[in-house]
């Protein structure tokens, strides 16, 4: 299994090895109060690719996202974003790197004292945008993308769980990040709302070419992202091959964490055909 982990299989794009992966972890370990959370984790996410991170609760999935954002520092190993190691960087030095990334937290993590408009505009203001017209134009544009333009003046408490996640997606993409991280974006949502979120994730990935890392324990969501792609013409998900996008499933990889270790790394075909009992439990 170890031989499958990231560094042994550089991502391919049109048959050409990716020189600089969007995200790469090299032998990352992290412990909290002497309890290991991640142990020697390595993988890479190529530009424009999708990585689905699976694992049971407490397997270190969310921690891994925080490491990629530089919200946590590993005890050992390297975390590279667009080829730059962020482990030795100070908080202020991380800000330019974080601009390349957007994150959707599990519960949305919207600022509850700010309206939807102010939540989405937050990053633009932090980046120094002063032109209110420009801000409003961009905020409306991304809220239209998630089909929530009508919620502009609402407070987060007035939104449903699914709407909060969609606003969170809008907030994350407002400054056009090239990497999107999703922490259990469909957890606790009904199947219809969960599908809406999956469509948005695929839309961002397929229309804007955003590198995508999705943490989930819902395998169905993972296979939706692996088997379908967003068709702008039909404004819906279509089977990858039907849209002429052959090979889409090969750019969606799966990584399974178990007790802080990488238990599996590979393609959809590899995970579905793998006889490993632990993986079979996931696929059941």
């Amino acid at each position, binding site marked *: 299994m170890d031989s499958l982990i990231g560094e042994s299989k550089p991502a391919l794009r049109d048959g050409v090895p990716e020189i600089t992966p969007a995200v790469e972890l090299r032998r990352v370990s992290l412990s909290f109060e002497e309890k290991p959370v991640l142990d020697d984790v390595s993988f890479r996410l190529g530009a424009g690719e999708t990585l689905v991170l699976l694992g049971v609760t407490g397997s270190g999935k969310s921690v891994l996202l*925080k490491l990629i*954002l530089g*919200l946590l520092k590993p005890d050992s190993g390297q975390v590279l974003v667009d080829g730059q190691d962020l482990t030795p960087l100070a*908080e*202020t030095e991380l*800000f330019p790197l*974080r*601009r390349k*990334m957007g*994150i959707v*937290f*599990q*519960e949305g*993590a*919207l*600022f*509850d004292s700010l309206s939807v408009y102010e939540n989405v505009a*937050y*990053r633009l203001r*932090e*980046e120094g945008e002063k032109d209110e017209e420009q801000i409003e134009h961009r905020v409306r544009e991304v809220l239209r993308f998630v089909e929530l333009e009508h919620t502009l003046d609402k407070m987060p408490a007035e939104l449903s769980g699914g709407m909060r996640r969609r606003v969170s997606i809008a*907030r994350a993409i407002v400054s056009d990040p090239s990497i999107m991280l999703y922490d259990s974006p469909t957890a606790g949502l009904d199947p219809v709302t969960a599908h809406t979120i999956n469509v948005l994730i695929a839309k961002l990935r397929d229309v804007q070419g955003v590198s995508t890392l999705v943490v989930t324990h819902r395998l169905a969501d993972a296979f939706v992202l692996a088997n379908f792609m967003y068709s702008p013409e039909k404004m819906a998900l279509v089977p990858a091959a039907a849209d002429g996008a052959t090979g889409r499933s090969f750019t969606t990889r799966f990584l399974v964490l178990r007790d802080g270790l990488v238990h599996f790394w590979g393609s959809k075909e590899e995970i579905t055909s793998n006889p490993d009992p632990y993986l079979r439990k996931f696929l059941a």
Partner: protein
Amino acid sequence: MNGLSLDNFVKRKVLAVQEFTEYLTNSIRHLFTPPRYLIDTLIQMDVIGFGSLPIVLLTALSIGGVLALQTHRTLSTFGETALLGQVVALSMVREIGPLLTALMVAGRISSGIASEIGSMLVSEQIDAMRALGTDPLRKLVSPRLYATVATLPLLTVLSDFFGMMGGALVSMSTAHLSSAEYWNSALQALHSEDIIQGLTKPFFFAVAIALVGCYFGLHTKGGTEGVGRATTQAVVGACVLILLLDFFYTKFLMAIGFF
């Protein structure tokens, strides 16, 4: 407690002191460097300063009155009730005004800050803030620190005045002093060193109130239960720190011969 857990306990405490020192240094350093969040600071000034006004003034009025009542009993034994204004003014301006105001604001503000920031932490809003390119120390701590440092001395001045007003009401109704007798006695007793002493203390107390509240909020652990714990710890921590600062600052002023 076995050797290992004692060792861990000591390590945790030393680490906490180290973290607080680093946090204190960074928070104060951020006061002098951009970016600054002016709107957030003004909002906090309203919440901390204007919001605390009713409770601070009511407490001061009450304490000033009680002080005059209690002192009147003692002074009347010696026929020195004319000194009531002096006793109340000196007590309020030197000690009770700054201390009581700080304790009242600590109870109201440290807890509010800790619970607000703690709730943001457990709902990942602080992580979201960092992910969106904001330093939480600048966005959350500095405005609260600025606002508390700016408003606590003003609250103290009003508290001193309302305390003396409370004393005046009691002196006129119980000790049958005239208003002129009370205020003459009070104002003649006050010297510049009393006023300086009483107005410099709030700056130290304000730093304690804001930073302790923010510190416990930013170190909340364990969901909503943790928020409750952080709130309690913030109030207790801020009050203890205020009392210690009061003692050592007074001692320091005496040591340098300030009064």
